[in-house]
């Protein structure tokens, strides 16, 4: 957990792990561009975000050593992500429910969706 060198100053990551992470990140970067060459419709957004999240996970786990860190670090990090998710999802929920009524014709797409059922 803390160290493999007995100094208590962090896990020393094997260079091949870092090289592998770099390779995976570059491949995923290519993928995230490549998927835009195909028309996935509304799913494109989710695909792009899934790839970005996978890349972010690789960076956090290996480049940032979270994989070897003490649990308190992961708790801190994940807490911030939970707060971000709450923040954005509630804001989206709010704007989609209220904006069309508050400002007529402000959000035509949403208004249409709401009106259409």
């Amino acid at each position, binding site marked *: 957990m*803390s*160290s493999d060198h007995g*100094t*208590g*100053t*962090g896990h*020393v*990551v094997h*260079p091949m792990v*870092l*090289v592998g*992470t*770099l390779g995976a*990140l*570059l491949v995923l*970067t290519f993928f*995230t*561009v490549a998927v*835009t060459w195909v028309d996935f419709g509304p799913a494109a*957004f989710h695909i*792009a*975000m899934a*790839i*970005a999240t996978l*890349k*972010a996970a690789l*960076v*956090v786990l*290996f*480049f*940032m*050593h979270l994989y070897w*860190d*003490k649990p*308190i*670090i992961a708790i*801190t*990090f994940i*807490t*911030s*992500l939970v*707060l*971000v998710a709450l*923040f*954005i999802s509630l*804001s*989206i929920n709010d*704007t*989609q429910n209220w*904006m069309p009524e508050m*400002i*007529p*014709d*402000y*959000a*035509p*797409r*949403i*208004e*249409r969706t709401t009106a259409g059922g």
Partner: protein
Amino acid sequence: MSDHGDHPDYLGHHYDTPEQQFDSGKFGMWLFLATEILLFAGLFCAYAVYRSNHPEIFHYSEQFLDRKLGGINTVVLITSSFTMAMAVRAAQLGKNGATAMFLVLTILGGFGFMGIKKVEYEHKWKHGLLWGNKYQDQEHHDGHDGHGGEHGDEGAHDDGHSLNLGIPGVTMAHAADGAGGGSAGDHGEDASQAGAAAGDGGDHGAATHAAGEHSDAGGHSDMSASDKSAPIMVDGEEIPHTTHETGAAAPEGLAGADDKHADDGAPAYVHIFFGIYFLMTGLHGLHVIAGLIAIAWVLVRTLKGHFSAEYSTPVDLVGLYWHIVDLVWIYLFPLLYLIS
């Protein structure tokens, strides 16, 4: 300190052991990084809310971002994240020479990123692709060439006077009065959003919507969304027939400009996309600069021999900062450059 005969120089007097110091420093850094994530979350939220309300603006604006440069910058930043991780590793092992080398490579990556960013910003500055009232409506050929080919599958490209966004019901017509055309279905849907009738009236309603809101060449950001929307709603319901009437109802200065913008093909409020774009990439760029300063600082300390296999925490923590900068860009790149 008295009870620690082997209290090393690098160990703060308020810590018992190097491990305690390391854990505290690391936890503190991660707490800071959590606040950084929340800081950026504010902008991501603005992006998400605005995009969910106005997908057509993002669809239209994305063509002005250079995917190639964005992609290269992604690779540059990821690679510099790798060299930073290698620098941390070398520092942990006490290899100061290797640490310095990897830190220099990381700094070069950061400069490369900012250099490409500068090219992108300059291009946008030159073309008035800016925020608020600094935004200049794009010329016809700019807007249309990029989209005509990509999104021409739904027809309604009557002499380039309308922009088909490929999203049902979000077609924005920019026909000057009389130049309408296009499929009735397309415009009818658009018009129905304003509560107007379908058919020809609807066509004009849609054109009104676009032209009325979007006709001030010098920029038009001072009005709030509701200011802009209100007259359109009225027009859409009560006088959907002619754009001139709309122009008269629109604020001073907008009326005469309809013809100028008939070819524009742009949805309204595009300047807000660029406001979001510059805030997000600008804040990120500031973080890159801050990261570069921090890396330069640990590079100097490395060269001075401050670090050893026993103590290299500053390199580690600066590395964490650099990685979070990379992390933010990993999301910014697809959100701004790729998704349309």
